[in-house]
């Protein structure tokens, strides 16, 4: 039995603004004990998939199972076994203290009082927030609040944890602490599974056993981070900063170029190219100069997951 399984999962939203198909036939099998990453840009369908798996949303078509239970029909069996954290939100009752907030949620999971107290204190130590246990939630920083929410989810000892962009908007140090905690939690327990959605490549690369890349509602690749990178092993990425801003569509027509993204900067354009022949570098440099621009930065880099994504979808993650 898989911890999570979806079969031809579709989800469509209809509203005044029209129809949006968020998931288009998603098939996934996530093994028990895995830290599985779902990687994709905003609007790719990651959160919709998590909402279905956490019983918050019904699929339009297809089936989803968590620990063998159907998310559409057996939500009462799933809920005691799961928990979730979303990033980039300000959830929590501001007038309660951190300890009160956590205690309250422990009661909704039927955890006996003394046991709940012990778990709260253990998590406060592990996540390094013991000093804020008696602070009101409204006074917390974004990072402190997210640590509290991580504790809320892990306090219930779930079999499957859903982390929806858990480090979104956090500073580097807090994000690192959370990643370290998640990895440690999983390695110390058997039979637990974590599904992590993120659009931070390094996070997926650092944490996940396997990664599915999702774009426009479809899974377009699924493998270990290493194997995904091998998909583009002969290739490399070229990073350039040019001034002033110039049109760059011509780069795509160079024979050995397989991916191109650009970003406007204050004074020009940042260009990222996936290619598999070094001769192409000369063509690009020559082309830039012929258009009256100058190159202020040029670097050839190893392939990252972001490059894999760029090659697979033809666009960047952010």
């Amino acid at each position, binding site marked *: 039995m898989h911890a999570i399984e979806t079969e031809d999962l579709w989800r469509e939203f209809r509203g005044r603004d029209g129809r949006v198909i968020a998931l288009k036939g998603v098939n996934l099998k996530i093994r028990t004990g895995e830290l599985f990453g779902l990687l994709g840009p905003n609007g790719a369908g990651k959160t919709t998939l998590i909402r279905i798996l956490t019983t918050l*949303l019904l699929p339009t078509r297809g089936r989803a199972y968590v620990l063998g239970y159907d998310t559409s029909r057996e939500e009462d069996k799933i809920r005691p076994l799961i928990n979730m954290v979303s990033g980039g939100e300000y959830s929590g*009752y501001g007038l*309660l203290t951190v300890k009160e907030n956590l205690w*309250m949620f422990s009661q909704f999971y039927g955890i006996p009082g003394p046991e709940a107290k012990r778990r709260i204190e253990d998590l406060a130590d592990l996540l390094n927030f013991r000093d804020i246990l008696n602070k009101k939630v409204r006074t917390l920083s974004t990072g402190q609040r997210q640590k509290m929410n991580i504790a809320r989810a892990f306090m219930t000892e779930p079999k499957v944890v859903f982390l929806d962009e858990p480090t979104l908007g956090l500073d580097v140090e807090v994000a690192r602490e959370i990643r370290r905690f998640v990895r440690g939690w999983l390695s110390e327990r058997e039979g637990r599974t974590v599904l992590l959605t993120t659009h931070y490549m390094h996070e997926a690369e650092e944490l996940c056993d396997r990664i599915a890349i999702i774009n426009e509602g479809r899974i377009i690749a699924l493998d270990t981070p290493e194997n995904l990178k091998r998909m583009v092993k002969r290739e490399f990425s070229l990073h350039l900063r040019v001034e002033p801003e110039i049109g760059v569509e011509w780069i795509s027509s160079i024979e050995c170029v397989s991916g191109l993204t650009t970003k406007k900067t204050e004074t020009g354009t940042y260009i990222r190219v996936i290619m598999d022949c070094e001769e192409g570098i000369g063509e690009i440099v020559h082309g830039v100069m012929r258009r009256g621009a100058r190159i202020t930065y040029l670097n050839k880099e190893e392939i990252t997951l972001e490059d894999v994504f760029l090659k697979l979808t033809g666009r960047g993650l952010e």
Partner: protein
Amino acid sequence: MQALKTIRTAMWLDYQIMANWTRPIIFFTYNIAKPVGSSLLLIAMYYVVTGRVVGSAALSFLFVGNAFYMILAQVMMSLGWVVHDDREHYQTLKYIYISPSSYYVYLMGRAAMRFLMALFPAFFLLLLGLLIPIPYDFNYPLLAFTLLFGWLFMVASGMLLNSVNLLTARHGGAIGEAFAGVFYLFSGVVFPVSMLPAPLQVVAMYFPSTYWFSLVRRSVLGVEVDGIMKNYTINQCVLLLAITTGMFIAMSIALYLTMDHLARKRGTVEMITTY
């Protein structure tokens, strides 16, 4: 067992949300001031129209009805916001919703605390009535029974309201006021049911609040002056209150299950409208 734990925790949370913004004494003063103010306004209006307040059976009817209507109004109006606030302001609804505790039971707990908190101003108003004076003739066992059933039918009504709110955006307060208004109109709060047009009298007989207010008057004043309601004995009133409350509870569970399914289908359980 878990249901009781959930109710207790939800009641605790509700009290914290209502009262934790200030010191208890200020909170209780605030809690009492508003209903007392509106009751005094009602008495003033009665005085302007009739030219007297002392020794009036109609005023006693109105005063007691109004004091207990404050409970119903406060429960209905404030419950209208629970789903909306949890979902959009505190952003905790989805985390409570996916817990093993029933969300229905959680809302019952929230409603229970609103009911308890609303009892204080009602009893304070009754004390104030001694100054008028209102001729009280208490039947305490009947009053306790009536209050218990009041809690049940108000929880059921609150759940009807909250079930609808699982699908709506910011209409919670308006729906709550509308609910409270319907009870005000049909239940013989400040004017007897017998004054309603005949078709509306029939409608009123399906509301538990009609029997509740009648039992409230009988347990507080010892009499019922409404031409229609005095035809029912206390036992008949108790039976009809139990039956109509049961109907409301069944309706609220059915509506909750329907709305819960629709909310999951439409994706509104964690909707953030920022309205």
